[in-house]
């Protein structure tokens, strides 16, 4: 077993867990890389090799995922949601949201039809997770 490789993967896990934990903070790849004593470029390459997407992409996906949950509540504005999930630019937020979800956040908020009540949280988290790589083709959540 390559012990060095396992140690590196554990560092990447710490970075990913930190994004899951602190996504609402103004995190960026430089700060994440500093936290594990890597350069930003090295972290991005290693993270993508391990998880299939860059840390920036993962962080934005995590933010959009939470934004979808907040928008489904229906009582929070798109601007409030944008800042609540750690995005500092409404333009970047809306663009990325639309790429991932297939509809702009305002449209999604108005539809807000996806019902997850009663689904175990681990499953709901997976099925409502936005689809990365711009695979979304319509406004219906994909369950498989």
């Amino acid at each position, binding site marked *: *077993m390559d012990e060095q490789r396992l140690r590196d*993967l554990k560092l990447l*896990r710490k970075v*990913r867990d930190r994004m899951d*934990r602190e996504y609402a903070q103004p995190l960026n790849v430089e700060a994440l890389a500093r936290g594990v004593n890597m350069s930003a470029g090295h972290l991005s390459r290693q993270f993508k090799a391990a998880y299939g997407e860059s840390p920036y992409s993962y962080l934005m996906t995590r933010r959009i995922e939470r934004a979808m*949950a907040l928008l489904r509540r229906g009582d929070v504005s798109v601007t409030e949601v944008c800042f609540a999930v750690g995005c500092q630019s409404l333009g970047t937020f809306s663009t990325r949201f639309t790429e991932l979800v297939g509809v702009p956040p305002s449209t999604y908020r108005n539809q807000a039809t996806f019902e997850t009540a*009663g689904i175990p949280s681990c499953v*709901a988290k997976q099925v409502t997770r936005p689809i990365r790589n711009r695979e979304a083709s319509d406004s219906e959540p994909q369950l498989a």
Partner: protein
Amino acid sequence: MDITINTSFLPHTDPEESLAFYRDALGFEVRKDVGYADMRWITIGPAGRPDMNIVLTPPAADPGVTDDERRTIAEMMAKGTYASIMLATADVDGLFEKVAASGADVMQEPTDQPWGARDCAFRDPAGNTVRIQQQS
């Protein structure tokens, strides 16, 4: 027919580290501890619930697992994509404070999820996801 889920299995990479998490931080009791060195099978569970067991196992101890598969499992555990479990408690915030104070890796602070649950999550020392839900 009444069927209960009696025993689940979670892999460990360092039995003492995992014991520190499950026994000392979460407060589970140790019911059985067999094997030696890193090849230990440790049965744990919540006090007063002898029908609920988790066995902390060496990963991929089955001799039918190939070296390639063993390497993949070790890498997935290190990445944090291999195993997970969901627990429930009447006081998720109180338990979160206790476990976080032990120095465990926090994945998610207690959060009201849109599907109605309030939960938090930790990374156990072997890289398993331990999600803890507020009992409804």
